[in-house]
């Protein structure tokens, strides 16, 4: 495989919009809706820690790469925007 190709693989990340729609799918599977505002509270929309886990696994599936992480980072996540930022940071790590 050419070096340029390796570089391309290492840099693959999903855009925030795509992760947002995947988040919508996780919620839709439970008959819930994802609000448009990033400031929407997870507690209000019923997005629980295992839903975050499911979302992260969907992202991993898409990237074909593991994004392992510890639980403490998750505890400060409160809003839809926090979720998208956290997933973004995991992909950059």
């Amino acid at each position: 495989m050419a070096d340029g190709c390796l570089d391309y693989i290492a840099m693959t990340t999903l855009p925030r919009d795509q992760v947002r729609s995947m988040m919508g799918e996780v919620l839709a599977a439970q008959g819930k809706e994802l609000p448009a505002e990033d400031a929407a509270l997870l507690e209000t929309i019923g997005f629980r820690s295992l839903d975050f886990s499911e979302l992260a696994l969907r992202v991993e599936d898409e990237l074909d790469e593991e994004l392992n992480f510890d639980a403490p980072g998750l505890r400060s996540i409160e809003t839809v925007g926090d979720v998208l930022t956290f997933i973004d940071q995991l992909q950059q790590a």
Partner: protein
Amino acid sequence: MSESSTAIPRASCVLVSGGSRGLGLALVQDALDAGAKVATFARTITPELEKLAADRPDDVHIGSVDITDEKAVRTFIKEAAAHLGPIDALVNNAAIGQDSLHVHTSPERIAAIVATNLTAPLLVVRAFLRHAMAKSGRGRIVMVTSVCAQRGYSGLVTYSATKGGLDSAMRTLAREMHGRFLVNSVAPGFFASEMSSVLGTEQLSTITRRTPTGRLVEPENIAPVVRSLLFDDTNINGQVLTIDGGGSI
């Protein structure tokens, strides 16, 4: 049938793994207060441990050893026994924690937790028994396990498996050693330490709320139980003593 009809003597020289801080350090101090000599190791020697060794040079042997390095552990036991005399008790305390859902824990991290918390303690027991059987022939072993081995706590799958593994090994060892060695576990509930520092205040207050005594366990609550297992004639053998304020009932 048991081969020893008299009480196992009180511990005179105790090997404590992971005695540099937290519960391990409290157990080192407590064993010294009870009149025993103590050999202890961790990867990093702390100022507290250095001070103990400086204050009690004839009673304390310390070393910087990684518990997963079997050869280094065996060498440490040899050197400690040359310094302090035969070691007749072991407190298997060193461990690393976990705070991640199983699906998000890397295979490497899972292997590291099993290596440190299960494989290495089993090898420490083996090395200790090979030393103690040849020297004093009788003794005591205390495994520091956890309430997680008995109840489910999210984020601790591999950690719990290692602690449950140690509890099982403890019972089998108690049987296998035919009463020549008393082998028991203490299973604490959550207490404040570097290991549990990842818990948020919300989680800590939930645990406290669910604990009938209304307060979290402290190393000072665990030390007397370990002391009794090491020094008293209790005839307790092959048991897990849970110390959690009743949180798991």
